[in-house]
């Protein structure tokens, strides 16, 4: 498979170069301008109404003790939607796969697309209590890749953050593992919040 770089030609050498520079950042064919984005479970060319959820239940004896807690995901998306079915995120219960591509025909603009994420200021519960979204951060990985940061790690900031710039005719993907900072004692309740990832090519 191209992703694993088992080539014996100049083309393979180029693929290897791309692999070392920005894995997984994969070349795709040009096409009339389009952007594709999936977060967690997705369908490469179809509708998918499933919104995955990332969650954590804080143990009573760890409430607000400052020890970050890993969060689990409802995603089951372990294989890439790039087209090669590569096992990019082998443990989706703790890894949310994000894949994005931008395609355009040669010499058309813009040269790249922008991937961003927008988070609200807080998660909230039914009693009106809140937890800042900045309490949630993520690390990144990509199985088999030496450079998994094609979409870098970060922390939500309660606003819009630019995550990555995607060159034309490129597909990028990696796995996001979230954790809750648990930095303060919070009122009892179930806190919910939703973030929106956007891939645009203005």
């Amino acid at each position, binding site marked *: 498979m191209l992703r694993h770089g088992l080539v014996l030609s100049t083309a393979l050498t180029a693929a290897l170069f791309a692999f070392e520079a920005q894995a997984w950042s994969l070349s795709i*064919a040009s*096409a*009339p*301008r*389009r*952007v*594709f*984005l*999936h*977060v*967690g*479970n*997705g369908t490469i*060319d*179809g*509708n*998918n*109404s*499933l*919104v*995955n*959820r*990332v*969650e*954590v239940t*804080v*143990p*009573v*004896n760890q*409430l607000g003790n400052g020890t970050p807690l890993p*969060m689990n995901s409802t995603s089951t998306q372990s294989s890439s*939607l790039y*087209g090669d079915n590569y096992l990019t995120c082998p443990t989706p219960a703790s890894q949310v796969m994000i894949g994005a591509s931008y*395609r355009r025909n040669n010499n058309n603009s813009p040269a790249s*697309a922008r991937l961003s994420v927008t988070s609200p200021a807080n*998660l909230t519960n039914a*009693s009106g*209590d809140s937890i800042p*979204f900045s*309490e*949630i951060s993520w690390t990144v990985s990509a199985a088999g890749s030496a450079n998994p940061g094609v979409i870098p790690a970060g922390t939500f900031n309660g606003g819009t953050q630019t995550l990555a710039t995607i060159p034309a005719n490129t597909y990028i993907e990696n796995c996001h593992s979230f954790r*809750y900072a648990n930095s303060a*004692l*919070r*009122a*009892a*309740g*179930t*806190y*919910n*919040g*939703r*973030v*929106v*990832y*956007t*891939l*645009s*090519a*203005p």
Partner: protein
Amino acid sequence: MKKAFVLKSALALALATPLIASAESQLVTGTGTAAGASARLDFRIIIPGFIALRVGPGAVLTNNSTVGAVEFTVSETQVTADGTINPSSGAPVDVALLSNVGNVAFEASGADLTAGTDTIPLSRISATVASGNLAHPTFNGAPLSVAPTSGRIVNRSGTWNFTYNHQGATDPVPAGTYSTQVTYTASLP
């Protein structure tokens, strides 16, 4: 060969489905790319409710079965007089109340001190707040409503001191070791 395969798939997509609006995967073509494709991800944090109380030995978030003891020793010169007796040991008492469920009902209940069939009313024992911000509920009285310190978080602690009102002249009691156990309870109102 792989590149050709991708081209074929893309062409088929453009003809059959010019715009697919989905939830957590989305493909947007043409001028719609300016606004872009979007995908949502939900987050949930579950915080359990709890009330933790410490009176005397132990730590507020750790179960501890050790019962503290406050003792008053009435001297020979005090025994026949009326007067306030300070503890000889066991005081001041460390206390803490921690919870995340809003107001907490806090009460103290106990029987009179007894030595065989002789009694000293529990009401002869008085409590004061020596330090901190946790009040002492009235013995066998109505629950004290403890207000949160922030939002719905109660985080109060301090120390209590106790005194014994000995009435050796007006209401003497037989010699003996009088004791009782007071139970402090913190609960949802």
